[in-house]
């Protein structure tokens, strides 16, 4: 069929995949392959030789390792945890921080339990000794009296050790606590920060006395003649107003000069 509408001869050629048996068969093969892949992925209990959606139910449920609705699907195709209905997150994830916190708490509880066990053991030994003396009197001085002797000798040193351990432990806890002396968390180092806050040009101006920096050690006294010092005072007396680290006014105070 030709066309002469546009004053040129046009012979249309149209390709239809339905007319091409090979292409049609290829598309069918692709579709079947995709179906098979999906079926194999989702259903382990399925009979592979059958195209039935449900397969052989007897064989699928014959063993303990039966398929169920998801065919014993493995992997993480479905969430293993329940959904947190309060959260917008579809799957509740375990927080790494919470995990770490739990580990620390577990370690601490173990340490406390050990201390309590020692103390409890000592207390029980002392109680046992008293109870044995009460029951047996002077006659029960055999094995029990030996144990009692050992316990009585070791009681005092153990008690001292336990007490010292407790004091050290509580002191360490206090020092390591937030704000304590051994608190290893982030701290601001103003000495280092001042290095970043002032440029070399500013330092030079301060050193040469071109810029006046007023210094006082007393609060709310800034500006009074008697208390106020400036870098000019130090420069005038030949004092280095920057230390070896380049920090301004470190180690010198107003009133010294």
């Amino acid at each position: 069929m030709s066309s002469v509408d546009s004053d040129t001869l046009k012979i249309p050629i149209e390709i239809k995949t339905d007319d091409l048996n090979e292409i049609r068969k290829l598309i069918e093969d692709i579709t079947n392959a995709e179906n098979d892949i999906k079926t194999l992925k989702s259903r382990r209990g399925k009979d592979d030789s059958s195209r039935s959606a449900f397969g052989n139910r007897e064989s699928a449920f014959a063993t303990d390792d039966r398929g169920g609705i998801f065919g014993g699907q493995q992997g993480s195709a479905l969430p293993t945890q329940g959904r947190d209905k309060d959260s917008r997150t579809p799957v509740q994830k375990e927080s790494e921080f919470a995990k770490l916190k739990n580990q620390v708490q577990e370690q601490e509880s173990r340490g406390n339990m050990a201390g309590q066990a020692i103390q409890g053991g000592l207390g029980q030994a002392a109680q046992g000794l008293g109870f044995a003396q009460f029951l047996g009197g002077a006659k029960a001085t055999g094995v029990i009296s030996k144990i009692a002797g050992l316990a009585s000798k070791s009681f005092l040193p153990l008690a001292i050790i336990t007490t010292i351990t407790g004091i050290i432990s509580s002191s360490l806890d206090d020092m390591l606590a937030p704000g304590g002396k051994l608190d290893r968390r982030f701290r601001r180092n103003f000495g280092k920060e001042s290095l970043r806050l002032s440029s070399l040009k500013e330092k030079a101006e301060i050193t040469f006395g071109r810029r006046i920096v007023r210094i006082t050690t007393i609060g709310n006294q800034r500006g009074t003649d008697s208390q106020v010092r400036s870098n000019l005072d130090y420069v005038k007396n030949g004092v280095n107003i920057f230390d070896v680290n380049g920090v301004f006014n470190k180690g010198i105070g107003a009133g010294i000069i």
Partner: protein
Amino acid sequence: MSLDLTKQRLSSATDRVERYIDDNIMVWATETILLPAQSNLETSINARAADALSLEKSGFMKIDLVWDLRGDNGEPLHFYLEFGTRPHTIESKGKEHGGADALHWTGPSGKNIFAKIVNHPGSKKHVGLIQRIKEERVSSLQARIISEVQNKIEVDAI
């Protein structure tokens, strides 16, 4: 639900294959139809007729084999050749109309022949030439498409 999904997947595979064909059909048609057809035209008519043949993409998986052969005055020679001409007379234009007073051609014996008017018997020598070219060559294009799609699927499978 399951049937709908299956239909969706089926159409998806079909769409993928058809889009691949549509993307490449011009290249494959040029190699399997246009270039051999131009060679045929050059042999059977002349190089101008061959150059006047081209391909145009007219739609999804559709192309047109376009023939636009013009005479010196823009006459659509492609129609005369493709559909043929009936017996007709040819008359000289005359000087007053910007032409010559007589027609001139060289006869079979090599003699110059002049005439004011001639009776042309009509031409059916090349009737349906482009249509025949299409019918002969379209199977090559289909074979090429099948081969290319098979290759494409094999490559994708790898």
